[in-house]
Structures are given as C-alpha cells and as structure tokens.
C-alpha cells in the first residue's frame, strides 16, 4: 500500500519558486562539470558560508536550493502540526522530533547558501496538519518523496563535500520515512530497492498537492471605509 498525496490539487512552479531563484539557478546549470576551485571562482561563490564554499559550483547551488525547498516544505508541515496541536499519541511525539530535525536542515542549507538561498514560500497544508489520518498520510508521502529526491540528485552533484552532506541527510530522511510508515501502519521498509526520482517528477508531485500557496493580500491602498 502506498499512500497518495491529497489529490485534486493544482500547484504551479511559479508558486513553488516564487522569487525565481530556483529556476534561475537551474538555468545556469553548466552542461559540463566544473569545480570552482580557483581563487576567482572562490570569490564568485564567496556568499557560501562554509569551509567548502570554494568547491560549490552553480549547479550544486541549484541542487542545494532544490533540497532547501523540500526542507522548507517538510519543516513548515511539522512545525504547523505541532503548533496546531491536533495530532495525538505517538504521531505527536514523532512530529516534535522530526520537525526539529527538518528545521535544523533548513537552517543548515540557509547558512550554506547565504544570499543565494531561495526564500520560503507560503504554505497551505489544507487541513492535513489538523487531522490525524491526513497528517500521517501526508507525512509518509513527504518523507518518501524526500528520500527519492535526494537520491535523484546524487549523480548530478559535483562537489564531494556537497555529496557527503546530501547522503548524510538522505539517510536521515529514510529513517523518518520508515518511522512515519510504521506509525501509519504500513511496512517501514517496503522494497528491496528504492528508485530515485528526477526533479521534474518530484516538483510535479509537490505541485499536485497545492500546498504551496499564493501570499495572502492583507495590505491595500484603497481609502478606508471605517467609522473614523
């Protein structure tokens, strides 16, 4: 049994990548592999606040931003679930633990990417953070998705340091996936061989959830019609 993300939803890449940084970085992805090891390149990527910054190419920046986008989604999902407080029992405990980890992932990616980090979009989790069954179903889908997404980028990552980070996070996501699958009542390790998923397929799945929402228009320029 494979849980499906909530259906009947429609999300656009524009919404996921609101400021265009993800697509902009992807468009700059070089055809040939290169490492920015030279001093000039180090200056170009000087915004990356890491000892490995000199070895992070534009292509890797795009991949890191892709990972950050997924981490935003997960961190916001678990954080909202915990704050709303509608989920109970072992699932609530898992939410607290996994949510803290996903927030730590977000912080780490943002610190590494610096000003090149994509901004966090607005989310509308459509009640899935407020209902036990919907929460578990979505959590399983998110974690399975993250595992497949990290794996799907492995062969594209240029710098060993970035690959090492991705692999370290990938296995954590796999543990989360197993935990959530167990809580949902399905086999934690369903298959002997996990397939990777390309970015296009992952984004299509995320779009189908419509969890990334337009920002609410709370500001206006019209004349007030208050009593005065």
């Amino acid at each position: 049994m494979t849980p499906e993300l909530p259906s009947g939803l429609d999300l656009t890449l524009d919404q996921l990548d609101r400021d265009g940084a993800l697509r902009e970085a992807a468009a700059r992805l070089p055809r040939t592999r290169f490492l920015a090891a030279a001093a000039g390149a180090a200056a170009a990527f000087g915004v990356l606040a890491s000892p490995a910054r000199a070895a992070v190419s534009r292509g890797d920046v795009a991949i890191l931003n892709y990972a950050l986008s997924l981490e935003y989604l997960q961190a916001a999902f678990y954080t909202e679930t915990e704050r709303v407080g509608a989920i109970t029992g072992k699932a609530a405990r898992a939410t607290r633990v996994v949510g803290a980890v996903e927030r730590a992932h977000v912080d780490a990616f943002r610190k590494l990417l610096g000003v090149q980090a994509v901004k966090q979009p607005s989310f509308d989790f459509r009640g899935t953070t407020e209902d036990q069954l919907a929460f578990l179903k979505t959590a399983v889908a998110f974690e399975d998705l993250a595992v497949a997404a990290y794996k799907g980028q492995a062969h594209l990552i240029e710098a060993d340091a970035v690959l090492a980070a991705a692999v370290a996070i990938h296995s954590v996501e796999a543990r989360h996936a197993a935990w959530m699958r167990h809580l949902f009542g399905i086999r934690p390790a369903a298959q002997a061989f996990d397939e990777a998923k390309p970015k296009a397929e992952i984004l299509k799945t995320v779009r189908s959830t419509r969890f990334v929402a337009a920002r609410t228009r709370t500001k206006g320029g019209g004349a007030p019609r208050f009593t005065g």
Partner: protein
Amino acid sequence: MSVTAIVGFSAFSGGGGGEVVVPRDAPLAALPAPALVVNTPVPLRAERDLAHWAPVLRAVTARTAPAVDAPRVARLTTRTAEQTANLVLVLGRATDRRGHVWTRVRLPVLPNNTTGWVPRSALGGLAVVRTRLVVDLERLTANLFRRGKPVFSARIGVGTAQWPTPRGEFYIRSRLARYRSPFYGPIAFGTSARSEVLTDWPAGGYVGIHGTDRPDLLPGRVSHGCIRMRNEDILRLASLLPVGTPLSIR
C-alpha cells in the same frame, strides 16, 4: 587527506573467485567533509501570544457547530470592503462524523464577539502571529505585546458616548496605506470590530485603528468608534503590528 589501508586482503577472497590483494600501504580516498553543518535539532518552545489566522478562500456560511446542518451564524465573503483578503482568527478545530475538518473562527460580524464554525476547506493556509493588541477605553491607551512582553504603548482617541467603541475580542483584519485622506493619517488598520450604533455606515461601520489630522484632540473620546492615534504613533505601530493580531478592547 588520505588514509592508509589497514587490510591486506579481500573480504571476498573465499569461494572460487580470484583473490584480490590490496597492498597494505595503498592509500584510500579520504571521506570528504560535508559542505554543511547540521546543528542539534531544537524543539519548539511554548510561546506566549501565539495565534493563528487564515484567509477566507471561498464564500462560506459559518455555523453554530461543526456540522453542515447546524444553524447558520453568518455568511463570509473572500474580500473586505477595501478589497483586501477577508481574514478570520482561528480559535479551534474539530472533525465531523464524515471525517471533514472544521475550524472555529472569530467572525467580523455583528453582534461583536461572535464565533462560528466553517469547513477547513473554505480557508487558506494558517498564518502565525505572536502579538496581542490591548485597547483600554478607560485609560485611553493602546498597548502591543509580543511574546507576552510590551513593545508599544500610545495614548489614543476612542468613540464618544454617542458612538462608542465596542468592547470585546477582535483581530486586525487589514492594513491600508497610500490612500489620500489626511483624516485617517498615513496608515490605517482594519479590525473585525463593528460599531453597534453606526450600522448603516458605508461598508457596515467597521472600527479602524488609524492616524489623524487632529492630534490636538488626543487623547480623548472624540471619534465615531475608531481608535485614533498620533501619526508618529501609528507609524511606529505599523512597524510592529502584523495583520491577524488578536485585539482586546476593554
């Protein structure tokens, strides 16, 4: 950095295949240091003044209970009179017998302090605020708290005895700027509170919080129900007050 092999033979040397010999001093590739450092995960802390709000995504009927056949309380639209998103303050939730999630919300309707239940599907994403605005009609003050700590205070003007500012629990519903009306000052906040007297006022007599072109009247009981403050005070408040903030008028 490289490390030296510590094994001198293949682990798979048995069983018919040829033995693969790794020289004792053959260098192995070093493990690369990860490009990022993930710090120790930090649990969420309990936060004072944490509240959620959500926009109304589709016109919907609010009901007295989380059920489609419960009595009707009010009809909610998606826009305010000023064409900003119509917001509701989220107070609670419940799941009905059919598994549908309902949300209990504070409503921008008369009588003031009305709450009701709407299907979760009619609302957009939950937004968080950590602020609370308290208006004291006796002391003529407005105090803003963030995470329980006072961050803003100002003397204000409120409604006259004829057009009193309503008391109760409300929320900040919109923020307006760039309009041409010195009467309202540079910035105005819409609230969910409504005058219980001026019900035929255009757009329904909503109470706003705004600046003024008559600072000489403040503090005092001078308005039609709105909460007025000096322009420098409303500008200071605007930098601190997010839309969706709960508002208590006492």
